[in-house]
């Protein structure tokens, strides 16, 4: 991480209030300023990205700051956006590859899974692919089955990929900065319903592979149940933890932040303390990453484990159908109570 030069001249890191989208733009902007090898490319980047995530807090599009050579509007060619990212990385750049929504990254799956992820190993360490592929995930109101999916477990399954899923503006800034320094191919999954969320951002990288305590257990330090989650679902878990607190149940919410490598030590430690682990994610529960976390905890602790995700159904368009795919506060509360055998 030595090739990273920060533009911050003050001793104290800068703090600002930004949306989740602006935080990412700020991270990218600062990385691009510090390192001329960082470039971004994808469809509609010239307009600041479809979600405004390539527009700085003062409203300017990054292309107006860095020029068309470094913020590249591309044809609708997902395979080649990703494949070109691999080629650019091999030829000395650090590309940020925009996929618009994770669902469309499926058109670039060979380039991501067989090319980017395998390059370094397959060529015996000759090649490095330091690219950040941005794959926005999650349910996005009334966007239906092809614009709402969460595929983090697919990519966590692939050796050679780092998988990141920030839940706050602060983490979206800090994790993107780290992703841009790490030298490995990173699948960077932002949640579409978090773009507008506002929060305080410390302009410092956040280490990959470390969980964050999103909600602490009771003041006594007693923990009854560990809730593990990531991305948008962290906020729902925090609400559920508050509801449990009203019943005198102390939940600790851990935000994994990085799906691979994931912070096994933090999760195991919390599960040992509480004796109860519930993993909650927005993705379909079947074969989801929650299964990996739950199995690991079961293998290494005496904790009782459970997981909670969406039913294995496509996300429907009508509100009533979409709701079936959403994991809500009450469901989490009920699952936690069942786990504690208090329901």
């Amino acid at each position, binding site marked *: 991480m030595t090739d990273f030069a920060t533009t911050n001249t003050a001793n104290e890191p800068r703090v600002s209030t930004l949306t989740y989208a602006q935080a990412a733009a700020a991270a990218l902007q600062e990385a691009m300023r510090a390192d001329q090898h960082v470039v971004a490319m994808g469809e509609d980047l010239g307009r600041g990205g479809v979600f405004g995530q390539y527009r700085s807090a003062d409203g300017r599009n990054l292309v107006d700051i860095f020029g068309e*050579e470094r913020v590249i509007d591309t044809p609708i060619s997902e395979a080649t956006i990703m*494949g070109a990212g691999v*080629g650019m990385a091999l030829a000395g750049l650090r590309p940020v590859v925009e996929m618009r929504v994770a669902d469309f990254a499926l058109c670039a799956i060979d380039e991501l899974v067989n090319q980017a992820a395998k390059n370094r190993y397959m*060529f015996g360490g000759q090649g490095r692919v330091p690219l950040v592929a941005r794959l926005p995930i999650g349910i996005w109101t009334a966007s239906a089955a092809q614009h709402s999916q969460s595929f983090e477990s697919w990519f966590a399954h692939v*050796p*050679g990929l780092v998988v990141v899923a920030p839940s706050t503006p602060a983490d979206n800034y800090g994790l993107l900065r780290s992703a841009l320094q790490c030298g490995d191919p990173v699948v960077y999954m932002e949640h579409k319903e978090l773009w507008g969320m506002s929060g305080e951002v410390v302009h410092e990288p956040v280490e990959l*592979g470390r969980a964050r305590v999103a909600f602490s257990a009771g003041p006594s330090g007693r923990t009854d149940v560990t809730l593990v989650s990531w991305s948008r679902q962290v906020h729902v878990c925090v609400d559920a933890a508050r509801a449990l607190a009203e019943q005198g149940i102390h939940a600790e919410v851990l935000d994994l932040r990085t799906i691979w490598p994931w912070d096994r030590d933090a999760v195991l430690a919390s599960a040992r303390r509480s004796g109860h682990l519930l993993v909650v994610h927005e993705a379909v529960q079947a074969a989801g990453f929650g299964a990996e976390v739950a199995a690991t905890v079961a293998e290494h602790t005496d904790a009782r484990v459970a997981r909670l995700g969406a039913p294995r159904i496509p996300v429907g368009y009508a509100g009533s159908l979409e709701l079936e795919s959403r994991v809500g506060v009450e469901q989490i509360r009920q699952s936690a109570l069942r786990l504690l055998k208090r329901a």
Partner: protein
Amino acid sequence: MTDLLSLFRTMVRIRAFEDAAEAASQGGVSWGGAATGKPGEVRVKGPLHLSTGQEAVATGVCAHLGPEDLLTSTHRGHGHTLAKGADSTKMMCELFGRATGYNAGKGGSMHIADFSVGMLGANGVVTAGLPIAVGAAHALKIRKTGAIAVSFFGDGAINRGPFLEALNWAQVFKLPVLFVCEDNQISATTKSAPMTAGTNAASARAQSLDIEATRVDGNDVEAVSDAASQLIAQIRAGSGPRLLHAITYRQKGHVSVDPATYRKQEEVAEALKDDPILRARALLAQRGLGEQAARIEAEAKAEIDAAVAAASAAPAPDAAAAYTDILTTGEGMWK
């Protein structure tokens, strides 16, 4: 150095390499998957795609490239790799699955690569090299290095979507890239023509995007070299992408243990008369350079014999190497 003798030297080195690799692969896994022979004696395992008969294309194109120029290849990549300047011993070590191979034994024939000479790898996925070459060219343009990227691909590869995407991208951004269609008229075990709409499809599809394309006799190494020389000069001068469509012939089966019974013996016999090395050898003799040519061929055989000997004696990778060069992020956190 693009005189016929030096082109001939590259071609016969490739031929010797392919012949040796083929010999070392016999008795491995048969076409269809059943194990044959004694595994201990088989030194080159797995799918081995030989470029025997196609040497003139790799040779004629790479003669005009330097180590700063970047190259992506196909599953049939030995010739491209040697022509780009790789070391035959390190290549043979890789085919033999040795720790001393270019890929430390992790890639084998299908992923042979030498990044130090700009050869960014053979590829097990048809057409996958084109978008990567386009990205490399894009980076070279942004970085203003003056170098170019070249992508070899087969005539079957033009029927996958990334072909169109990559050519369009290269033209939209006016990138310094040469696309080389190595048209051996067959895809795996199926003739390409009935599977491909349009005539002269590789050239025609490029031309439909306003990318200039040149068709050439891919068994005439001087013709390939001349055509490549012109196209590469245009690209270096800022023309944007160009396509070279070289018609050649795959003398062997799809993989080394494929007897290729799907084609007629007469067809093969006829094609062998057009062998690029035979043709170059005859030309050299005509020009009074027969003796030098014979010496070059002997040297090539000796070089490759030595490569085989070195590879045979080289160590296998440590099993612990299976865990290295995957990710840096999280390394040592836990396995």
